[in-house]
């Protein structure tokens, strides 16, 4: 099995991204006015029924960089150009202080509060949401979701690395602010950023942050601790 085949089977295609349990995940399309980008994101349960969790670098350039608040939309259940549940545009973006201040990969978590879709419905009412957990032991077994768009993937569908265990921490993580991040095996590619790491089936516990160019089979995500709890609570208060 060559590298391409291994990646495609490792980050396996979800047969029906609109099915319950998968429809909470979607693609984030971003424009900063000059270029288009895309990330992955996930609807998370909250009283305002409007939270999308993703990577910090999918909402803010980091290090006091720009917010991607020009055009930022979330398309849950996306597949093959189809928007089965509509499009949800961001009306508020947030991230952690350590991402803003230092571009710390340990704090690469972002959140959006989205407006209603074209039919006037709230995100949570349409697709539901995952629960979210923080301050759990890092040694978890994750399902990693996402929409990788760079080769060998094409971004057309949702993918999942199933039951991939915590491998350890990245050595570089020791040098940045925030709790040590998490590593898990998953053959990611560009576009997978912000994809959900779920535990216990439907509980968000990290998001895809980065991989090394010379080893795209190891995915790194931030540990969800107090900073994420604070971010969740802040975003939940946005109406």
């Amino acid at each position, binding site marked *: 099995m060559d590298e391409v085949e291994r990646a495609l089977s490792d980050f396996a295609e979800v047969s029906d991204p609109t099915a319950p349990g998968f429809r909470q995940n979607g693609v984030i399309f971003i424009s900063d006015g000059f270029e288009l980008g895309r990330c992955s994101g996930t609807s998370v349960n909250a009283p305002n029924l409007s939270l999308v969790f993703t990577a910090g670098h999918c909402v803010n350039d980091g290090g006091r960089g720009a917010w991607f608040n020009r055009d930022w939309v979330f398309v849950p259940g996306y597949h093959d150009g189809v928007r089965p549940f509509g499009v949800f545009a961001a009306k508020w973006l947030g991230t952690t202080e350590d991402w803003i201040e230092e571009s710390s990969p340990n704090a690469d978590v972002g959140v959006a509060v989205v407006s209603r879709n074209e039919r006037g419905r709230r995100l949570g009412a349409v697709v539901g949401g995952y629960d979210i957990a923080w301050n759990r032991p890092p040694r978890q077994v994750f399902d990693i979701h996402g929409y990788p768009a760079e080769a060998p993937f094409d971004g057309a569908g949702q993918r999942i690395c199933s039951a991939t265990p915590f491998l350890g921490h990245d050595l570089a993580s020791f*040098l940045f602010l925030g709790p040590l991040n998490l590593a898990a095996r998953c053959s990611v590619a560009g576009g997978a950023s912000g994809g959900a790491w779920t535990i216990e089936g439907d509980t968000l516990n990290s998001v895809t942050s980065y991989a090394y*160019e010379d080893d795209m089979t190891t995915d790194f995500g931030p540990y969800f601790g107090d900073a994420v709890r604070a971010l969740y609570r802040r975003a939940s208060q946005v109406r």
Partner: protein
Amino acid sequence: MRTLAAIVGLAAVGLACAPAATAVAHGTSSPRALLAGIAQLDDQLALLGSSSDAGRSDEDDLLAIRFVNHDGYTFRLFAFSQTVVLSVIRRDRKTRPSSTTYLARGVVTSSSIEASFGDRGRVSLRFRPSRRPARATRRVKCTKSGNPVAAHLGLFVGTLRFRGEGGYTSAEVQRVHGGSLDPAAFVACQVQAIAPPRQGSPSPPGRQPSGLATLRNYVEDFGKDPPEIPGVDTRPSEREETTALIAHRKTPLTRTVFVALNRGQGQARFLALDAGVDGSLGILRFVSVPAPVAAFRTEDTLSGASVSPPSPFSGTAIFQHGGGREKSFAGSLAVSFLGAPGVPLADSTFETLLLRGR
């Protein structure tokens, strides 16, 4: 817009780190000596594509300690934000440094360090600064206003306890000299005085004590051999060729690098680095050793090479580059890092390059 980050580029790093590995700080605890340790760590982290500046804002003080243990090992510790870095260094000779660096999460304030190194030890120290801060008063190129305090020297009191793997060293100190440094002030400004003069009168007002470089210059010049003088080489063809063999192995959370260098200066140099994570402890091991040129032989066509580096390396290895993409690096070559003896360096899991250039 950032996509998945590409943080490490291993292929280019081996050559960059080579000269710095020969430089080791000497002397007592002065900001300069303490920062020398940081510079060395920077060089090692360069192999990983990171920097000790990461996670440290301009406002953060950097607490630093350096002492020589009773068994001859040099201990360097520096701490900033949430990161505590302890380096244990052995120098068989001036040019043969071996070090193992441990990175731990900790709680660091401007006056205290708390960190656990697991079963290897812990640090719980409070800083008592002396009454004489070192101020950055010379305003040449100083981008910080006023007379910022660049460093306090002083005493750390509490416990620093450490036992290396297999007991290769152990230390326990309750009082140790060190300092609290403002790296930004060092970088931004000339520092007038960083330690009380050992003898004679204080330096004349407004004059920088001789021999003191700015931190920036010092770090930039650190270990360069020979010192880099601004200028343009108009006869590059007369420069000596450098031949390098670089072998590296990557697993999800570890990297091992072996570098053999021949700069045509009548001496070869061998380096090895192993970086990884053990639980909640990052560990970075490094050795560098000079050797006779004969220890690193290469064929003119770069189709083959052999290495037989001296201790702390052992064994030999042969690199062969056949037709097409077939390459092999095999043999009994191994290295004994501080705390990790007999780490193999030549087998099919290593990717190997043999390069030559000016």
